[in-house]
């Protein structure tokens, strides 16, 4: 994925979903859901951890400027470089400039949502810099030429047979549909790249202000190779990743892997504070951190919407979301999918571009129940729906006029009980012409959108009449 989308058509996409996607997604996510549940059950203090995680994040959101300044100071004194990128373009240009200064021809990259957000791969390729994804899932989707469809498992929508077909086609070989063999093929190719690349690019899970430390949580070891083998390491990280100190970090490390993959801790947890300080030490000679704003400071002004930045990118909300599990990640139209995508993209891209996303939820609340930092996702969805429907300080209403008019009319009818009661009186008769064998199999618009999937029960509404006239005598004196 390169340029941010001009419009996200969730409905249109949802009408043409290949059947293989929900099948693959449901299989993978159910494994994460049960893994998470098992880990959570082992920790009696889970709810206190969530509460602490939520409070630390809120505190950091409110004091972000202070912590970012502290972080910069610490990184500089550790010998690193810090760059501030106001926009995605700025971030891309800074990476390019660093690459050019070091004559970089090939870069190896570990998995990062921030670089997906800014479309870094596409940008560098246009500048003739080869950029290689080294996380297995990212490597697969890079070969396939698509974006990620899940926060932590970017190729979750693909079955092993499909992955073998992609390898066979793109790598010009006969790849078997065997996960171990596919991983071996990728490792062999990637090892060569790790040894020759002049630059390593990463994202980051947390930035610890106290010491200026970049924290990376990974499972495949590729992140460690990207950040230690090349002499140059560039990390692109959103400003929302900042946390105050190491004590806070312990809370998030306990929450993250358990929520994400059902692990107690991920295989690798890396702490990077500046470049290597002397020969013989591990790590690159130069370390650059690009702090990405890209609209974040504006969203931070909105007291309801900004809670989206509590997110630690575990993907638990997507794993339990029945909508996500039936549509897959691509329906959300940008680098981030699932419930968190539905509340982040409309804020980052503007509500006009992503106005369908806040409605891509039944408000069932399963996401908020599992969120390790207690993001009130349904509340933010409603908040953004309000922005779409009625407009607020950030945007004028963008909902189609006929829907607004219909909402106005129903508000009028529901606020005046005589209009409502008149409607209830005539509806059964009106709708009875559509009745067949005790059901309404096909109704006029907009109810036709209901009946295309299942019949509607017949309108009965005799209760009011029954209460007045036919109810057995007991309690009748309390009729009003």
């Amino acid at each position: 994925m390169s340029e941010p989308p001009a419009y996200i058509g969730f409905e249109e996409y949802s009408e043409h979903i290949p059947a293989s996607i929900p099948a693959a997604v449901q299989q993978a996510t159910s494994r994460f859901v049960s893994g998470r549940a098992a880990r959570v059950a082992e920790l009696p203090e889970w709810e206190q951890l969530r509460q602490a995680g939520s409070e630390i994040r809120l505190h950091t959101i409110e004091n972000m400027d202070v912590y970012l300044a502290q972080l910069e100071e610490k990184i500089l004194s550790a010998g690193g470089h810090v760059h501030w990128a106001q926009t995605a373009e700025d971030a891309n240009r800074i990476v390019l400039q660093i690459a050019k200064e070091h004559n970089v021809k090939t870069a190896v990259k570990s998995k990062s949502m921030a670089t997906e957000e800014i479309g870094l791969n596409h940008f560098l390729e246009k500048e003739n810099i080869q950029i290689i994804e080294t996380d297995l899932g990212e490597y697969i989707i890079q070969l396939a030429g698509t974006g990620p469809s899940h926060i932590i498992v970017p190729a979750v929508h693909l079955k092993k047979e499909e992955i073998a077909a992609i390898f066979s086609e793109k790598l010009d070989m006969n790849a078997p549909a065997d996960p171990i063999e596919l991983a071996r093929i990728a490792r062999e190719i990637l090892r060569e790249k790790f040894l020759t690349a002049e630059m390593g690019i990463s994202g980051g899970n947390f930035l610890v202000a106290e010491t200026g430390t970049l924290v990376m949580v990974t499972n495949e070891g590729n992140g460690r190779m990207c950040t230690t083998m090349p002499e140059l390491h560039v990390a692109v990280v959103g400003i929302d990743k900042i946390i105050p100190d190491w004590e806070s970090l312990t809370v998030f490390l306990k929450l993250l892997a358990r929520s994400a993959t059902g692990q107690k801790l991920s295989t690798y947890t890396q702490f990077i504070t500046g470049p290597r300080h002397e020969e013989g030490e591990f790590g690159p000679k130069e370390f650059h951190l690009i702090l990405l704003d890209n609209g974040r400071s504006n969203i931070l002004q909105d007291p309801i919407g900004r809670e989206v930045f509590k997110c630690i990118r575990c993907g638990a909300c997507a794993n339990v979301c029945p909508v996500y599990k039936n549509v897959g990640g691509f329906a959300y139209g940008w680098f981030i999918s699932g419930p968190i995508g539905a509340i982040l993209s409309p804020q980052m891209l503007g509500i006009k571009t992503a106005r369908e996303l806040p409605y891509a939820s039944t408000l069932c609340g399963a996401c908020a129940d599992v969120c390790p930092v207690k993001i009130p996702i349904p509340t933010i969805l409603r908040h953004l729906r309000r922005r779409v429907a009625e407009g607020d300080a950030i945007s004028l209403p963008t909902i189609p006029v006929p829907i607004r008019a219909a909402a106005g009319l129903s508000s009028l009818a529901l606020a005046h009980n005589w209009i409502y009661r008149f409607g209830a009186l005539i509806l059964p008769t009106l709708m009875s012409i559509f009745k067949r064998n005790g059901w309404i199999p096909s109704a006029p618009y907009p109810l036709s959108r209901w009946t295309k999937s299942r019949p509607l029960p017949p309108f009965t509404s005799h209760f009011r009449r029954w209460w007045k006239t036919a109810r057995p005598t007991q309690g009748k004196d309390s009729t009003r």
Partner: protein
Amino acid sequence: MPKAQLFITCLGDQFYTTTLQNMTHILERLGVDVSFPSEQTCCGQPLFNNGFEEKTRPVALNFLRAFSKSDAPIVAPSGSCVSMVKHHYAELFKEGTPEHALAVDIASRTYEFTEYLVNVLKVTDVGAVYPHKVTYHASCHYLREMGLKTEAKTLLNQVKGLEFVQLKEEETCCGFGGAFTVTYPEVSRSMMENKVKDIVASGADTVVMCEPGCLMNVAGGLHKAGSHIRAMHIIDLLSSQ
């Protein structure tokens, strides 16, 4: 004598006359003095949940006025509508206004039907007999917004002859979501079909739930799938003798 004002909900009013009659009978049999404020319409949740907060306000005011004529508890056959009144009405009005105070008062005495039976009246056996294999779908707002995790099952447990079978993914949304069914009909249908598949696989001959909206969706889905499994509101099951 305990009192209750019936909050019949708009879906109940339009589609579930029998359920509302059964609700009245059960409450009266338990010695509750039941009243019905006929000025009530809808709680306004469809507008509220779709972003029309301004347009919800007059609807909420109509509700508050209708139910403020008595100080009796308010009881509804829906956890979702009750949650709207209980958790969202107060945020519609400015703190310190009489409307806000009224919303807080009404919220504090509004109950979902099973909640009212089990937690207020302290009744778990309503004398129902239903010799069938029954499974249960936990509706989202009933379960997560209202936090009603045990009430329905406590009541089902006391029904004579009832054999309870567990539903796989009992707590997963059925795809109703109000306007969601018409906004994204394809997604709603896939979710509903998953739910129907699990209900059929449970081996039950009846599926029961506490929400008119989910009931419309699941019953319609079962009918469309050609299944003979009965989808019932818990109130109708509890009034089987």
